[in-house]
């Protein structure tokens, strides 16, 4: 389990959270079982640094808490509307952030050699597709390349 942005212990905490958010139901697998947490860097590379720091702090804080406490925390985040002002806003952020991580990994069906992505896709009968190819060749990449006055290293052409 490797990530450029999170330690193995932090990933383990996300797996525990993932198992509460996506516990599996016989057809759909349990989140930790899928191993999709390995692909968290697909998101982590693009989220703002302070959000990533917040997630690391959260994972470090929850690391030694029992599952029941994490479950309770998640439950409280769903009750955010009863908390006014910044408290409610932070609970909503936490709820959306954790659901975002788990569901984006779980329901995006990234390439996954273990086959769990395929199982989830079949579990919800997802079959969205583009079945045709464009008729015209794409001349835009060459136009964009020619329009750039810089080389990839930033030197002038």
């Amino acid at each position: 389990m490797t990530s450029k942005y999170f330690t193995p212990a932090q990933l383990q905490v996300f797996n525990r959270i993932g198992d509460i958010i996506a516990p599996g139901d016989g057809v759909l697998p349990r989140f930790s079982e899928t191993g999709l947490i390995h692909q968290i860097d697909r998101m982590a590379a693009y989220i703002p640094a302070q959000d990533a720091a917040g997630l690391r702090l959260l994972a470090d804080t929850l690391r030694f808490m029992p599952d029941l406490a994490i479950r309770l925390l998640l439950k409280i985040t769903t009750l955010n509307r009863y908390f006014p002002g910044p408290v409610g806003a932070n609970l909503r952020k936490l709820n959306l952030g954790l659901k975002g991580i788990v569901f984006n990994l779980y329901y995006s069906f990234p390439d996954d050699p273990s086959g769990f992505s395929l199982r989830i896709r079949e579990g919800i009968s997802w079959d969205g597709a583009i079945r045709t190819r464009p008729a015209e060749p794409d001349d835009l990449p060459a136009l964009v390349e020619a329009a750039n006055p810089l080389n990839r290293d930033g030197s002038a052409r």
Partner: protein
Amino acid sequence: MSPDIQANYPVIIIGSGPSGSAIASELTRAGVRCLMLEAGKYYPRHLFPRPEIDYYSQIYWGGGIELDTTARNGIMRGKAVGGGTLAYQGIMYRFDEFVYQSWRDLSGISYFTEEDMQPWYDRAEPLLHMAPVDERYRNECSRIFLEGHRKLGYQAKPELRAQHNCQWDRGNDCIMCLGGCPLDSKGSMPHTVLKRALRQGLHLIPEFEVDQVEVKAGSIICRGRYRRDRRMSFSCRRLVLAAAPLGNTRLLLKSGFRDRLPALGKNFYIHAQWFHFGLFDQEINAHKGPFQVYGSQDMRLRRKGIKFENTFAPPAGLAWLYPGYGRRHHAFMRRYRYVSCIESSIRSFHPGTIRLDRNDNLVIDCGLTGDEYRRTREARNMAYQMLCSAGAREVATSCFSICPHHFGGVNMGVDGGRSCVDPEFHLHGFRDIYCADSSAFPGATGLNPVFTILALSIKASQQILKEMA
């Protein structure tokens, strides 16, 4: 030219969305040498990020979404060559007197009328293929939407969409194009307006994020980072801001324009879009074929600042929006094909603000008041009635709103104390800096904005050309 300046151009355009692309197209057509700086990457059509997790992360700022201070509203703004048009559904509206009346009241600008704006729409229209979706391709989600409107006594009509040759009869699903259309069928800027500008000689640097604008005698310097780490500068005689409300406002605030523009960052408006899901006993297959085919077009709803659309979301997005988690959530997701959806879009009437914190991060206050939340509840109740009347056995509303339409922050007006952009598209007090994108809109609209951004930007281009001559 100063040694730290890479090159000098007559015009630099910051941002490659509809405004930047339209202005670039008009100026290069007239032979003006222009440089466009775009913070996001260029994605060729065969390399659009896939799967869902990748396109949310890569083509939107903030890794997908930027939450406001209440965390009830998630702003979505494109970060790629083409801006938000890479992801949009190409819904096109000519604004009517209802919108322009409110804009005249807010801005004091007299040309905001249907009649005065018509020639600019007429010039924008041929830039994109615009047509409604043929009725024979509408899916069950559309049928439910229409039936719901009919039962509640509201009018709904086919949306005018910038698209062509989508080949739904051959099994293509528009939901796959939310991260970029691999067929070039959607009227995104790179394959339409921007392409024209490139053919006319536009220079374009993707992955260049401008973080400071400095006005010196006779020239404007744009400083920023190329490909994340290489600091560089370009100078120009005239600058066009086309980075949308959050991008333009952030850049001007960071560059110290607040002292000269007291209204900078104020007058920010959104459309808060809530998804209402109905679970049916029969298959709906809302993800198949075209979606967002119909919209409510009823003045009673317009006056309330409510618009409905028959939109939908792919699995990860839908799972995120649907409230709750756990086994109950799994049960819902396993019925994905049985879900229909109506989106309500709530026009904000009360202005919010955009500011920066100590670390120059955006702090977005959408300014929503009890009035907006009351209308949100009213729209939710109407959507539930529509879904239930069509046979839904369960209904639920998304746990937050998404806001792909945002306006203001650098709003237009005649009064320099209450606005930032004058009627001729200059920043007040800065004759060589122009803005005509949705950040210059005096208020929210209740309608999809891209057609008007194009029209207004073409009008601004003529102003720039006139002044250059």
